[in-house]
């Protein structure tokens, strides 16, 4: 290679590095595909085999013939009950915890302890939450096996989701907003109530939706605290037991004989439909928010 001709010619080492670069990039793209494609494939099997079973009757009728026929209406209503009550418990606790951590807490040992507690609440296995629910809510507080006990268990489990999402959206608000309000003589709480919360409302909402999505899908925490195998009627108060979509799916898949082959897929499709549309709403909301905010 002549020195003059090499000006725009990649050297051998450059060529090698470029080859390595493109090989590495293809390999990484391949690993991403290996992770995503089987999962997508399996989910599409779920849709293909579950979709024929969906109908108006499927959603609006109660199960018949030891669950092998009929619909999932009581389980749907039960899941709505469980999720709503769990939200009623988790929301005030979670949002106030996030307000404390974002607006009041100093960088001291107590704050560190709270953060450790949140990390661990999120990491404790769901079946351990179930044991806690049995010990604390069913037995100690004497709620019995009821919607209330199951929802409290779910609330403790989803608390970290709400706290983390809310804290993030509160901290995303520029400090100057708060300072402007303080300089007008407002108290800390007036600032939070009139400025901080209204400006982070949609951020908090995404956290709430994620929390709902999590509560809807959980099975282990409600198995022994409030959800049961079969009840033809929807619960009338928080002291009643209930069916739930997730536990129903577990039962028709493993516990009962003579279930038609497509039924678990239809129930799974319903459950995953609810959960994923919740997440889709939350993602869409977040994107819209990011597009709009200019501070």
């Amino acid at each position, binding site marked *: 290679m002549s020195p003059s001709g090499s000006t725009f010619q990649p050297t051998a080492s450059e060529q090698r590095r470029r080859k390595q670069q493109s090989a590495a990039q293809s390999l990484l793209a391949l690993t991403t595909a290996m992770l995503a494609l089987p999962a997508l494939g399996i989910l599409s099997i779920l849709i293909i085999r579950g979709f024929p079973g969906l109908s108006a009757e499927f959603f609006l009728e109660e199960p018949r013939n030891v669950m092998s026929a009929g619909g999932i209406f009581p389980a749907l209503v039960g899941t709505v009950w469980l999720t709503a009550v769990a939200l009623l418990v988790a929301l005030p606790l979670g949002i106030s915890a996030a307000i404390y951590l974002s607006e009041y807490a100093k960088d001291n040992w107590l704050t560190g302890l709270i953060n450790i507690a949140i990390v661990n609440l999120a*990491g404790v296995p769901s079946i351990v939450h179930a044991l806690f629910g049995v*010990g604390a809510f069913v037995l100690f507080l004497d709620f019995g096996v009821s919607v209330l006990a199951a929802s409290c268990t779910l609330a403790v489990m989803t608390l970290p989701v709400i706290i983390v999402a809310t804290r993030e959206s509160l901290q995303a608000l520029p400090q100057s907003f708060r300072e402007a309000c303080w300089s007008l003589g407002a108290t800390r709480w007036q600032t939070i109530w009139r400025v901080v919360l209204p400006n982070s409302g949609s951020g908090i909402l995404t956290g709430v939706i994620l929390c709902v999505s999590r509560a809807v899908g959980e*099975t*282990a925490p409600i198995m022994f605290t409030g959800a049961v195998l079969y009840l033809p009627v929807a619960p009338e108060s928080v002291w009643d037991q209930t069916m739930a979509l997730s536990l129903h799916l577990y039962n028709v898949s493993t516990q009962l004989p003579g279930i038609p082959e497509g039924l*678990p897929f239809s129930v799974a499709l319903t459950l995953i439909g609810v959960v994923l549309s919740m997440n889709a709403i939350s993602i869409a909301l977040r994107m819209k928010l990011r597009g709009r905010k200019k501070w």
Partner: protein
Amino acid sequence: MSDEAAKQHRLTAMEFDRRDRSWWTDMFAKALVFGGGVSAIVFIVGILVFIATQGLEFAANRLSWTEFFTSIAWRPNSQKPEYGALALIAGTVSTTAVAMVLVVPLSLGAAIYIGEFARGKKREWLKILIEMLAAVPSVVWGVIGLNVMGPFITDVFGVPSGLNLLNAGIILGMMAAPIMTTIAEDALKAVPDSYREAAEALGATKWQVVLRVVLPHARPGLSAAVLLGVGRAFGETIAVLMASGHAINVPKSLFDPIRSLTATIAAELGETAEGDDHYQALFVVGMLLFTITFFINMIANAIVRGTRRKKA
């Protein structure tokens, strides 16, 4: 000072007393949100206390710890009940190990691809896809293990039952992968762009930047991501229960059915009576799970915090 002046002085002091209604509201609100903040501590301590006390009497008086950790015989319902958890521990450890071997390289590779190579719309969609996969409920993964992966493994490998260690490992891996990918990508994002720019200015290719600059700096965050994935796989309950075959067994091959600690609690708690030995033994298993996941989370947390402090 004259009387008149003293009176004047008192008035001013009262004017500066800001303890009006909004001050009291502020104090009240502060106490309220403080309560919310502390509730997280209350709950985690509550979990520890309630699980420990439910199993305490049996653990202190009748449980042989040597049997618990060294015997593979878990026979709570026989005439002479035995509570050896070794096979259950082996089940949990082996499924977690299989899951990690399968997906740690894939998750880290995907995180590097999404974080460093993918751009624009492709990157957005990949991130959404990962987030959606993380949201799939564990009971749905269980159904997939039972009804899709099970028959598939039976056909492909010609084994009598597709519900085994391999199945549970694959399902757990798919569940843990989105979490590991997300956290690993965050760790990559935390490496300052100026590091990349400096390396690129020296003529390094994208891959050299990743290999020589980004990865070494993100290593603690990446190990935290793997640890949290391990924690997730370790504590997963319903999916393992449905996909693993649920047989008490120390696995010798990938095609042996196994049973995990978590699945044992889920399957057996319903058939116990409150306070009897079997019930208490399940709480002891729960205590073991709590302790292990607690340490996994603490270590991961310490790694993440350690790097953050070093940067600041």
